[in-house]
């Protein structure tokens, strides 16, 4: 059974650590209105990553395309002008992967879990999917380049 508070704390800690250490993005947690407004727009990149373990479900990461571009350039240490779509999508999938793994390690360090491979997801469909899901924890964060939403939902009947 999910401990919402522990998971929420793990997700917040992961966002701060991962984005600052690997993507050089200072983060302010909890600017919900602004982050949600930005990730509601059309130019949003969304990555989903399923997992199994003591609990099972998926993480969803959504951020504006402009911020994704900047994150890819900073992550790879290259000039933004040389960043391709492949770099951006690969970076956002990797960001979702690291955030999910770090979150689950913080949530329960003693239990192994299996992560699926991250995949890009249509933003509108992802929102609809999450609207029907149970056990959602959603964290909004603000960075100098825009807002990020990192969300979790649980499978209703974990396998």
């Amino acid at each position, binding site marked *: 059974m999910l401990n919402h508070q522990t998971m929420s704390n793990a997700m917040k800690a992961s966002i701060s*650590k*991962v984005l600052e*250490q*690997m993507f050089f993005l200072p983060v302010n947690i909890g600017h919900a209105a602004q982050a949600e407004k930005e990730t509601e727009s059309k130019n949003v990149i969304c990555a989903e990553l399923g997992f199994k373990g003591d609990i099972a479900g998926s993480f969803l990461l959504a951020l504006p395309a402009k911020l994704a571009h900047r994150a*890819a350039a900073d*992550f*790879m*240490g*290259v000039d933004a002008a040389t960043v391709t779509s*492949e*770099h951006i999508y*690969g*970076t956002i*999938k*990797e960001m979702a*992967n*690291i955030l*999910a*793994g*770090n979150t*689950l*390690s913080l949530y*329960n*360090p*003693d*239990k*192994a*879990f299996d*992560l699926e*491979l991250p995949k890009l997801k249509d933003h509108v469909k992802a929102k609809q999917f999450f609207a029907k899901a149970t056990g959602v924890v959603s964290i909004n964060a603000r960075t100098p380049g825009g807002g990020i939403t990192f969300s979790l939902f649980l499978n209703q009947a974990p396998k």
Partner: protein
Amino acid sequence: MAYNVLIVDDSSPMRAVIKKTIKASGFNVGRFHEASNGKQALDILKDRWLDIVLTDYNMPEMNGLDLLIRIKSDDNIKDIPIVIITTEGSRQRIDAFLEQGACAYIKKPFSPEQIKTKLNRILGEPDVKSSNDEQCDEGLDF
């Protein structure tokens, strides 16, 4: 000495980050080789001499643990040090990597200093390695 390094990760941006980090650490790298999964890595290992392999765990086709097992069961390549780079930091999973012969693991997110420290320890850069140092991790540095 120039080291030949194999980086195995299905994410091309992550391979670029690892390369950048190793270069920034000041290691004398002869050549970087890259693979996007364990199968590709084994193909590269068949006909090239590598000094160290840094591999992701979660990959399509063949994951990092299966790659590790395959390398350690092949007499021709079993002595090549393998470093697992993973987001999955549970004790259970780390123990499995080390029991199968991984020399070290690096947990994502990582800092350049962590990469440098691990590689120094494994490859034995003379400025930091004493004759009594263990070559591989003992799994205590979470």
